């Protein structure tokens, strides 16, 4: 192999590796999750705050009273959120910033915020949301692959259906 061919091969391999590296980065930074926030009691927490407000990127995404759930679609492996917690009606609010790592393998993630605030381990307040297909999703779908379907019917099919 002469020098110029060797050089070309090296450039090609380098370009391939760079593209693979970009793809790997995209896999990590672009992973989408739907995060569900629960303000619900659990084995760890019997009493939950009166209201929790969740802000992501400065935007309010959920305002949860007792036993309520909110959600937000996020991208990446970490969720930084601002929580505004009101323990009792008319009481003082406490504001805090929380960064939560998100498991890569989960599409839907349920965060039990009262348990998280109580300092429970991640396994105890993070669980997977398993979506159940809706009736319309589960219904059989007719696939139309040919836009001209029906145009090639010169009467044979209608005759067959009549007779």
């Amino acid at each position: 192999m002469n020098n110029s061919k060797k050089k070309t091969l090296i450039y090609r391999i380098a370009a391939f590796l760079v593209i693979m590296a970009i793809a790997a980065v995209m896999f990590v930074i672009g992973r989408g999750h739907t995060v569900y926030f629960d303000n619900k009691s659990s084995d760890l927490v019997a009493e939950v705050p009166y209201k929790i407000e969740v802000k992501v990127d400065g935007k309010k995404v959920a305002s949860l009273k007792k036993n309520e759930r909110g959600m937000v679609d996020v991208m990446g492996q970490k969720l930084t959120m601002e929580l505004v917690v009101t323990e009792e009606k008319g009481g003082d609010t406490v504001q805090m910033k929380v960064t939560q790592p998100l498991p890569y393998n989960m599409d839907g993630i349920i965060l039990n915020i009262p348990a998280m605030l109580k300092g429970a381990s991640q396994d105890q307040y993070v669980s997977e949301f398993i979506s159940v297909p809706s009736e319309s999703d589960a219904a059989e779908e007719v696939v139309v692959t040919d836009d001209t379907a029906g145009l090639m019917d010169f009467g044979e099919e209608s005759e067959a259906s009549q007779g």
Partner: protein
Amino acid sequence: MNKINYGDLLRRFSVPLMFVIICAVCAPISGLSPSYLCNEIVTRMGRNAFLILSLLIPIMAGMGLNFSMTLGAMAGEIGLILVSDWQIVGIPGMILAMIVSVPISALLGLFCGKVLNMAKGREMITSYIISFFINGIYQLIVLYLMGPVIPIQHSNIKLPRGYGIRNTVSLLSMRQKLDNLIPLNIGGVKIPVATFIIIFLLCLVIIWFRKTKLGQDMRAVGQDMGVARDSGIDVERTRIISMVLSTVFAGIGMIIYLQNMGNIATYSSHSQIGMFCIAALLVGGASVEKASIGNVFLGIILFHTMFIVAPKAGTVITGDSMIGEYFRVFVSYAVITVALIMYETNKRKNKSKAGEQLALAQEEANE
């Protein structure tokens, strides 16, 4: 001083002129506000320009209108389907879909280029039929292999029977992410700045490419294959490269197009895209042999203005919006037909002119 031949000029710009007249007549009748029209045209320009620009390279190489750009569109769709299933969203999802689509597009372009080398002089009809052939393979992959062979996990993408992809795949997580990356609003008209930057970069690449050795080779091949071969250019390789580039750009263009739309019509998104892109390019004043970046943008403005105003004008004039729908569809096909007829007529005219000149030269030599 050269005298301007108005007849030739009129013939050359007859199609854009006709569309200017149609748009000028239909726009006021449609009753659409100028800001709405501008918004729609700017959106459609961002959506379609990259796809139409992908047609320029094969024209440069003398391969005519690349009807097989749908191959790239299919590759782009496969990339988006996979990325949607992997739940990669936003701009990273688009980039990953492009990375997935590029090797598929390149392989399809290579195949198409090789086939077209076997059918020199009949490139357009061959590429048109190749697109049907590959569409069959695409359907086989998407309808039967996605699920059992190519893992697809999510039930909102997979058909309820357990394999195959649904008629529509939602791209809500990517919808207009590129268009809205750099938000700009001028007088109520939303400008997709990031998309325009990418289109501008492709324009620069095309301009630069024309000046490179490969670009010059392509132009030489496009002008005369025999002469190009005699001067040492590998004609077949050059033609294959032009097809690969066009197909890869079409794949990327399709991803940009679909991120703007926000969903994929799995079995039909690609089928009409080639036809409409080619029609738009021809409306911009391009021909089978010659097309420029200017033709792309003029074509998008005129063709899509007609697309927007025709149904409304049809409704106002006849009371039936379908008349306008029919009108815009038949005009698209008519433009392509007219361009092909003009191409053949010019070719014959040039041939007979060359024959006459040769005969004259021979006569002079005999005398």
